[in-house]
């Protein structure tokens, strides 16, 4: 990139405009969360941490955070296990048909979430999984698979297939080859997929709106309800925490990538 032309004024303007457009809606919640008023507004006379205090004192918010966390962890486990095995399987078979499987696995990403949610609603009705933690975990896990398939497939594309041959030639069973040779080589890809699958579940709303009502109340759902029912600034505080948490996860992902790139 060092050899390119310097950016002209128009390009600079466009670039900065885009950055602001992306960042402003996110940053607006930060001052809102510090408002001294009792309703959703910008601070008027001073900054206050009262809404953060309310958040951590509220049984309902904490329970929503806890529930979201457990669901996200469960969904990540499902997505990582299924996505990794699928990616490895497709890679080993390496035929046209496996290409089809890979595309199928990306479907949850391609199909509009709301379409998927309607279908899931019918299915979960029959399976008695509506409004249950297990149901939401499964739904989030399955829709998280594409992230893992993509990152693990990318990691496998860089894997030298002769290493697998070498391992087997030295007497390693499929399980041993997987554990000692393939998995350590693609671990950064798996971790990256896990982080994305976690974030996906952590802030997923559309599915939850359809398949959960009262017993399962995730954090995004609680914010959604809050916006609809009252204009409590606690939501802004929650939003800020959500943003910080996500940035933390992405930073972790970046660190893992930097390490594996070495």
């Amino acid at each position, binding site marked *: 990139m060092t050899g390119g032309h310097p950016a002209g004024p128009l390009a600079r303007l466009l670039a900065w405009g885009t950055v602001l457009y992306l960042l402003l809606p996110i940053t607006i919640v930060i001052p809102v969360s510090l408002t001294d008023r009792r309703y959703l507004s910008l601070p008027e006379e001073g900054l206050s941490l009262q809404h953060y205090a309310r958040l951590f004192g509220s049984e309902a918010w904490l329970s929503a955070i806890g529930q979201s966390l457990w669901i996200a962890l469960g969904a990540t486990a499902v997505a990582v296990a299924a996505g990794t095995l699928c990616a490895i399987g497709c890679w080993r078979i390496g035929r046209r048909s496996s290409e089809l499987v890979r595309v199928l696995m990306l479907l949850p990403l391609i199909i509009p979430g709301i379409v998927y949610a309607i279908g899931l609603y019918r299915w979960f009705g029959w399976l008695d999984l509506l409004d249950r933690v297990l149901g939401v975990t499964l739904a989030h896990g399955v829709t998280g698979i594409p992230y893992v398939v993509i990152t693990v497939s990318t990691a496998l594309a860089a894997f*030298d297939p*002769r*290493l697998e*041959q*070498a*391992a*087997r*030639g*030295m*007497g*390693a*069973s499929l399980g*041993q080859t997987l554990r*000692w*040779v393939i998995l*350590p*080589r693609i671990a950064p890809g798996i971790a990256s997929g896990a982080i994305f699958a976690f974030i996906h579940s952590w802030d997923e709303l559309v599915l939850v709106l359809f398949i959960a009502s009262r017993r399962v109340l995730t954090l995004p759902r609680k914010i959604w309800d809050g916006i609809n029912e009252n204009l409590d600034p606690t939501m802004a505080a929650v939003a800020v925490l959500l943003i910080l948490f996500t940035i933390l996860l992405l930073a972790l992902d970046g660190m893992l990538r930097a390490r594996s790139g070495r």
Partner: protein
Amino acid sequence: MSAAAAAPALAGRPGRGVGHALELRGLSKRYGSFTAVDAVSLGIERGQFLTLLGPSGSGKTTILMAIAGFVAPSEGAVLLDGRDITALPPERRDFGMVFQGYALFPHMTVAENVAFPLRVRRLSRAEREAKVRAALDLVQLDRFAERRPAQLSGGQQQRVALARALVFDPDLLLLDEPLSALDKKLRAELQDELKALHRRVGRTFVNVTHDQEEALSLSDQVAILNHGRLVQMGAPEALYERPRTRFVADFLGTSNFLRGQVEAAGGGEMQLRAGETRLRQAGGDLPPGATALLSLRPEKIALLGAGEAAANQVTGSIAAWAYLGAGFSLTVRTSDLGALRVALPAWRAPIAPSEGLPVRLGWAADAAVPVLEDGDAA
């Protein structure tokens, strides 16, 4: 060369002779309509060093992969000590293998790489450590045990791959172009090391290469392959001195090819005629009137001084020459035999080569070898 003949082969050979005899029986591999390996049958005796030699696309690597178990043959069988192992998966064959590019595990240290086959076999930690140390000693890499493969030179990586392939006392060691990634000088060094290693461990080695020098210097037996077929197999000197076909003569070293009409045959000799030139050729049993093809090595042609005579004589003039340090390489144009390559030792060469210089060439009746055209060889 059957498996049953394997046992007595050890007599007079150095080394422990703990290798195994390998036999290929009618091995074929087809990919769709393409035949990569065509009915190859060969045997290698216990403790010997066999090289599969051929140009790229000759099927040599496919044969090695079939021996290793990574390629399932379309027809034929692989036998180890007379036991059919064709259906055995690679992880149950107990063969050591050095891959092209070595295939060392980049996330493991040298010691961990070498310990891998032992870990797979669930050896105790103490046993593992002792064997790894012995294997690294064998290839003189004991000081590098804690390094990663990426921190080693090409030659060192190659030695780690050898140690890893030998550490579990494999029945057979397979080598897939083990020296091709190294520069010329290092290659020569490791060739010597590989040969010494083969003597020390006394196991059966099967090597694949396209480098004829490597094949000649390393092997007890060389199998020459072309277009998926076994063209000729034998000891290096036998292949060089008595090539069966034009391809073998041409691929191993360099050769002049002379074509002549048989005028008379008998008494272990043929009289040939090429234009105005009469040739005497030892051996060969072609009937009068047939066309004979002879392979004549450049170093077996002498420059005749005034008054000197030879069984075969031809005159010509130097068309091109090159000084190669140890010798001169001359191209001599003759009227009846075309251009002949002549290798002349440079030290005390009888002439100072120059273009257009007339010379007289001579060679003995047994210097050339009758060979088959490649089309007739099958």
